[in-house]
């Protein structure tokens, strides 16, 4: 196979190469690597390496708005450790992340396993659940405002009224006691798609003979699910757990649109706290320290994936 005639496109260049084969000495590996990596290096450097280094640097400084930065060492971190608002935010982030992951993976996993018994008949319903995953967090937040609207135009209050439970109707997003539950419901709704997809993909790879053997041995669907499909779908579910944990941990968009962090900061997680402190109060050093805490949390959750990727990097 020749270099010149094997290409699909780039005809002009290929023809030149055909006319003068090997006249120009090819670039050495490192030279070619520089050429091919340069564009990525530029974008990656500006939007990953520099921000990472600068956020860490800023977190050791006191910096407000346009003023100068002054070195405070671990001062910001010490202040965070004593800030009752931040500590409450940490616990809230943990509760939000674990709840959304447990609910979304629980439902997605169960539905994915059930679908394996009737792949064709359930295809449209799978798509209905999965489609919500293609909807942005911003739109999901807007959609759920409609469900929790305080007056009778809100679906939840409306349904409670129809069920004769009108006295339970309340401003769900307006009271600190219920806003977090509302946020968790909205975030879980949009997060179910991925575990469903990955579970279903995993059970599709189970050999038919295994499931048939279970059926012939008289195993009921629930027993087949519990003893065969659940363990065999674990690899897919693990990926879904990881992605949903990370997504919930760094959530911002859905919180911003649905509750704006309120009422009374009752729905602020670390990802939102960071935004409020640095972008609305312009307390940039403190905000940077919060960001580093968020980064460390995401890294801790991602550690298995990082190890796997690093080992596989050949």
């Amino acid at each position, binding site marked *: 196979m020749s270099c010149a005639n094997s290409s699909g496109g780039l005809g002009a260049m290929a023809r030149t190469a055909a006319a003068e084969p090997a006249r120009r000495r090819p*670039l050495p590996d*490192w030279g070619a690597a520089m050429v091919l990596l340069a564009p990525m290096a530029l974008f990656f450097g500006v939007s990953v390496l520099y921000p990472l280094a600068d956020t860490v640097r800023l977190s050791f400084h006191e910096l407000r708005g346009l003023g100068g930065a002054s070195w405070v060492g671990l001062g910001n971190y010490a202040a965070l450790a004593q800030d009752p608002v931040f500590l409450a935010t940490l616990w809230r982030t943990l509760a939000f992340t674990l709840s959304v992951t447990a609910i979304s993976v629980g439902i997605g996993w169960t539905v994915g396993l059930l679908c394996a018994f009737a792949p064709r*008949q*359930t295809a449209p319903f799978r798509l209905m*659940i999965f489609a919500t995953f293609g909807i942005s967090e911003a739109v999901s937040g807007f959609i759920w405002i409609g469900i929790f609207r305080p007056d009778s135009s809100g679906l939840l209050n409306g349904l409670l009224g129809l069920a004769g439970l009108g006295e339970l109707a309340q401003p769900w997003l307006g009271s600190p006691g219920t806003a977090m539950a509302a946020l968790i419901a909205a975030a879980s709704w949009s997060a179910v798609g991925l575990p469903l997809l990955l579970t279903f993909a995993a059970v599709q790879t189970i050999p038919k003979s295994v499931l048939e053997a279970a059926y012939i041995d008289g195993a009921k669907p629930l027993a087949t699910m519990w003893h065969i499909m659940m363990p065999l779908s674990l690899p897919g579910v693990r990926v879904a757990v990881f992605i949903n944990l990370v*997504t919930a941990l760094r959530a911002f968009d859905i919180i911003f649109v649905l509750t704006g962090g309120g009422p009374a900061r009752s729905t602020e997680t670390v990802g939102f706290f960071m935004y409020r402190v640095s972008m609305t109060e312009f307390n940039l050093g403190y*905000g940077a320290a919060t960001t580093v805490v968020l980064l460390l949390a995401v*890294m801790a959750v991602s550690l298995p994936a990082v190890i796997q*990727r690093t080992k596989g990097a050949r």
Partner: protein
Amino acid sequence: MPVTPPKWIIALVGAIGLLWIVPLIGVALTSLQTPEAIARGWWNLGNADFTLDAWTRVWTEYPIAASLWSSVKLTAIATVLTMLTAPAAAYAFHYLRFPLRRGTLILVINAFVLPQQVVIIPLFQLWRDMGLIGNVAAVIVPYVGLSYAWAVFLVKSFLEDFPKELIEAARIDGCGPVGTFFRIVLPNLVSPISACAILQFLWCWNSLLLPMLFLREDVPLTVMLARIAGQYDPNVNMQSAAAIVTAFVPLCVFILFQKQFAAGNQVSGGGKE
């Protein structure tokens, strides 16, 4: 496996599926009713009066057309830049030998741990000092830079199974490494590059935080929707129409290409953040 699946399974999955799209049906019906009808509840279809009023007025009441154009522009440029630069990088990492190769690769593919929040303070200051706030580049640069963690990983995983003989043959015929990439490898990378394009398209179109902070006017649809959304606004029908416009394109792309999306997600380890 039973030949006829148990009925209760289909019924249960069906019920959950229908429950899941109730919010979507709600938005669609809300956009088609008058504010008075919506105040009684969009589900009261008995005395609902349907109207396209919101759909005709939304274009003039909110800057939908400008935002749509902004979404298209930002997403298209960022997607094309990722499609061009990530495969070149993946090829270099996979086939070429150069100093610090493995260290750089490990750094790039593990950058997925970075939450978007990490970039906003440094880039906000940088763009402000460079006068780039409000410029499309302020958003496109981080869109592209943050895509490499999964885009390079995805293309490189594909290259693991790429026939080595093709590369060697090209080399023997005197094709340099850059030429080999453009003439031999790139034409065969259609499937991973399209997977990258779909993921990047969805991620860019749906993101809110970066354009909200780095753009002033000409904001994309997500930012416009976030600005007009509110619990107590009476124009819910027009807001719903705007939400449908915002969600329509990515939802179609998502449904059409779910298979590639699934494959991409399995190796990339990065969802819709």
